[in-house]
């Protein structure tokens, strides 16, 4: 079976052909399995955004290949067009892309570009709106009349309505309050559970990633520095710190507890997990 997305020796330069030429991503080889939820982490400028912009052909590789569903997306015009619909990319602050007169029309923009039938478009818009929690009475309103959080949901619905096989979020929770953050994480988890599609999340928030991802890819210096399960990656805290990253705060607290001789596990990545362990510990039970 082919991978959802595969990159082969993918390299991209910025300011190519000038003295300032730098490799934004250098010789990246990745395989993303179908149905997987992958988190990509890395400090600012590590090449994360450049990498994901290759997945739907917004950027053309200077060398190497991007395969979506086993097919080179740069083979011809049609494969490139299809890659845009197979791989949905939801950028940081997606609410800044809203433009239509009504929320409904804006969510329908993607499916319309796919040249689907009116009935199919309607079905998809309503489905995406329900999924993202866009209220039905908002569909007829102007997107510019919504609140910040509502705009974000409408914009995410605009990408989801294309029903891509792979959905990529770049910093989906940026600028949201804690509740908005939590809701969004739930939304993404639910989406994946119900549709079974592949999801890739780029984030700075180690907690958010830890709570969702099956696998984590760490980008550093334009290449993949580490990849593996949440346990595997977060157990290498010192290496992460040397790349300007960190482990989740709760993991660090538990590491300090262990250092004080308290018998708690090291693989705690979410606050809920930590809360449960501490509760049983306080009741006198064994933590591990």
């Amino acid at each position, binding site marked *: 079976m082919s991978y959802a997305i595969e990159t082969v020796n993918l390299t991209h330069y910025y300011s190519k052909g000038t003295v300032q030429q730098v490799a934004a991503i250098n010789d990246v080889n990745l395989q993303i399995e179908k149905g997987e939820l992958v988190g990509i982490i890395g400090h600012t400028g590590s090449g994360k955004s450049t990498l994901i912009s290759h997945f739907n052909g917004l950027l053309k590789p200077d060398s190497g290949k991007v395969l979506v569903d086993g097919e080179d997306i740069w083979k011809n015009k049609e494969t490139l*067009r299809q890659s*845009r619909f197979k791989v949905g990319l*939801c950028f940081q602050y997606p609410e*800044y*892309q809203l*433009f239509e007169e009504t929320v409904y029309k804006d969510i329908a*923009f*993607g499916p319309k570009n*796919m040249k689907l039938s009116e009935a199919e478009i309607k079905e998809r818009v309503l489905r995406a709106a329900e999924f993202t929690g866009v209220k039905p009475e908002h569909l007829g309103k102007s997107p510019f009349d919504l609140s910040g959080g509502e705009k974000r949901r409408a914009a995410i619905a605009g990408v989801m309505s*294309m029903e891509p096989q792979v959905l990529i979020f770049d910093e989906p929770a940026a600028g949201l309050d804690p509740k908005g953050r939590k809701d969004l994480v739930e939304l993404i988890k639910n989406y994946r559970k119900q549709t079974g599609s592949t999801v890739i999340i780029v984030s700075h928030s180690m907690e958010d990633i830890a709570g969702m991802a099956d696998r984590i890819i760490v980008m550093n210096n334009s290449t993949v520095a580490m990849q593996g399960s949440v346990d595997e990656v977060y157990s290498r805290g010192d290496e992460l710190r040397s790349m300007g990253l960190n482990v989740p705060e709760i993991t660090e607290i538990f590491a300090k507890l262990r250092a004080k001789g308290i018998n708690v596990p090291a693989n705690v990545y979410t606050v809920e997990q930590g809360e449960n362990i501490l509760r049983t510990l306080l009741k006198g039970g064994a933590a591990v």
Partner: protein
Amino acid sequence: MIRDITIGQYYPGKSVLHRLDPRMKLILTFGLIVVIFLCKSFFSLGLIALTAVFAAIISRVPAKMILKSLKPIVIILLFTAVLNIIYTEGGTVYFEKWGIAITEKGINTAIFTMIRIVSLVVISSLLTYTTTPTMLTDAIERLLSPLKIFKIKVHTLAMMMTLALRFIPTLIEEIDRIMNAQKARGADLESGGLVQRAKALVPIFIPLMVSAFRRAYELAFAMTCRCYTGGEGRTRMKQMKLKFRDFAALFFLVAVTAGVIFLNIKFEAVI
């Protein structure tokens, strides 16, 4: 594509031209542009061309940068040259067919206008290469300040210009971002007829306007928070003072002007 525009591009340096008072540079540039249009013979125009080359050399701006500023006008140059050759008549006829005549005068005029346009662009781009946009608007504000008598808000105009220049790169970045977001939703910006392409710009243009207004409001707030109230009673950190070199430059302009007038009288006019 948009990045090729060199207007307002500053080339950092410490040459005499860089250190010249920006007000004087503005006066010099405008003076020279007027003088370019005074030229009537190849000799007076040659003097201007030499002046432009001389200025380019002492500015220490690489020749490559100066040629880059000429790139956008290549088409205009060719167009005017062809028109001049076809429509100007007089002197020896070199070629005549299909109602088109190529004459000595036509070729002369074409060459003359081409040199004129190139000098014009070189001189004005030297101004922006050697002066930062902030210095330039500052200079414009000072030079226009007498207009205050007519209740024209010179300071506001200059501030608007500074801000507009400052936001060009920001908006270009914004356009890039919005274009990518809409392309990711399958927007087709590259194919189709004229009407279709114009329509395809709507999803780019509207978010751009929205964000431009949002930025403008934010900036206005930030400026108000830092007690900005306009030009009234505002003092400056960097005072501009005319130095010897500025007067020397002014003298240079006068000398060039006199030279041009002299050569105009002495030699036969081309146009």
